[in-house]
């Protein structure tokens, strides 16, 4: 601190500069705190959506697997297993992009898309398999979309947490380092200025006393 204060010029102009800097820093802290509040609200919104998304995934998967077992009950597990060996798999792709949501921060956005290799017609025999198999595939695909949505939410939460950490560090740095330093510098300059004024006052009084004494000696 002593080394830092050595760089401070103890003048009134410096005092004014220091006070202005302190006001600016306090303003920045206010803004950062408001940003932090917004981010925390966003974080809680995302957190609230997770249990319902997980429930939806659970329901979709449960329904999908139930329909799949029903298909096996209707057609026979052997037939379904046999058909599964030659059915053309669907290639799913997840495309990652960004979207601006809160405070101009770029949040990750995931989108599930199907590859170009899907046949335009049926993927398996319409006579050898029951309708339940189509519905099961549809439910599982719905579950996949929800899983991607959950992954996106979790990625956004991680992003929000990172930004919250940065903001907190900035607030703490300003509140616990910069502002105290500025306060210390302001007090130092005020002290020096007061001391100089006191010295000046004493000098004036001494001069006045000596003038008086000279005047009395002459008189």
């Amino acid at each position, binding site marked *: 601190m002593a080394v830092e204060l050595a760089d401070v010029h103890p003048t009134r102009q410096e005092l004014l500069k220091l006070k202005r800097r302190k006001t600016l820093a306090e303003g920045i802290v206010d803004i950062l705190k408001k940003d932090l509040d917004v981010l925390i609200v966003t974080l809680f919104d995302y957190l609230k959506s997770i249990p319902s998304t997980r429930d939806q995934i659970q329901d979709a998967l449960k329904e999908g697997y139930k*329909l799949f*077992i*029903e298909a*096996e*009950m*209707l057609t*026979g*597990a*052997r037939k379904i*297993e*046999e*058909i599964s*060996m*030659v059915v053309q798999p669907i290639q799913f792709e997840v495309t990652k992009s960004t979207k601006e949501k809160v405070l101009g921060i770029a949040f990750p956005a995931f989108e599930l898309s199907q590859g170009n290799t899907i*046949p*335009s*017609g*049926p993927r*398996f*025999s*319409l*006579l*050898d398999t*029951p*309708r*339940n198999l*189509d*519905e099961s595939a549809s439910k599982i695909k719905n579950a996949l979309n929800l899983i991607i949505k959950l992954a996106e939410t979790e990625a956004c939460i991680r992003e929000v947490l990172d930004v919250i950490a940065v903001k907190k560090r900035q607030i703490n740095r300003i509140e616990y380092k910069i502002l105290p330093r500025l306060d210390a510098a302001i007090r130092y300059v005020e002290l020096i200025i007061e001391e100089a004024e006191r010295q000046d006052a004493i000098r004036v009084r001494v001069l006045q006393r000596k003038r008086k004494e000279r005047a009395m000696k002459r008189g």
Partner: protein
Amino acid sequence: MGVWKYKHITPTIIADKLSLIKPKDLVELADKDMEQVYSMLTKTPYNPEISAISAQERNFISFETALLKHLMKTYEKIAENSPKDVRVLVYAFLKKFEADNIKTLLRFKLAGVNTEEALRFITPIGKLDESRCRKILENSKSLRDVVEQLLTLEYGLVLTEPLLEFEKTGNILLLEVALDKYVYAQLWTAVEKLKGLDKKIAKTVVGTQIFSANVRIILRSKAEGFSQDEMMRHLIIVPEVFDEKGLEEVAKTTDVKECIKKMLETSNFAATKDWQYMLKDIAKGFETSRSLEFLDTALDRSLLRTNLQMLRRYTSFFNVGSILAFMNLKWVEVKNLNSIMKGLEDGFSPNEIKTMLLLPD
């Protein structure tokens, strides 16, 4: 000659029909566990096949295989004892199972599965017994080889042209659809060769099967948004059952609801009472659930109803109706037992299993 030709088969059918599991007993099975079901089946005609499953091999696949083996044995017995003209029809019916075996051979060859694993999925029937299937699998490296080996049977010629298309596109469905169309065409040809009351009954029963198959294809195509061309490729066109003009009107519909409504209005689709009831059941189910997951159960129940009505409308015996009805009832019994076993294995509740069963009204 008339009814006298049924003198051998009728007692067999009567005896076998009496040994079918009663619907009430079938429903009760859904409340039991797998061991109890196994134990109960050893007291039925399924005993030899069920008892052959060792304790270590007891699972749904071995159970399903045992039931199918019994079913094929029953069908072959019926074919052997049937009158000459009906035998042709029964063997045509069995071609569906031969075609299933061929599809299995094609699928496993395409997937590169070894012979022993593939043979677990084959239920020997007719000309496609285990040794022939083993020989086909061991002597072929590709689907072309399999088709060439089938040239000694009628199926090889049926698959020759679709094989060329498969080799361009890699879509095995082309071969499967060709087999389905051939089998149903053969079935209808066998029906046309019957005479009198037998022909009338067989046309109703087999016609309903073909109609049901096509309704399945149409509604699933509509629900999945397949093109008209794709749908047409899969349909089984038998002019007496499925008029192309009526089909064009149905094909133009845009969604499932409109499609069912159009089928009910179009005279060719609603030609018989049985088909009307079938379509009305489907319409009702779709109104309630807005999905088609009930479709297969509704169609199968309709087929069961048609078979039982054939027995009620005409005398129960001394015509082809009793044979076809018994064959379908036996098939339904096997399906129900499979549903129960699969449901028990996967922890379905008794009520959930019971909703999947095909039971007479």
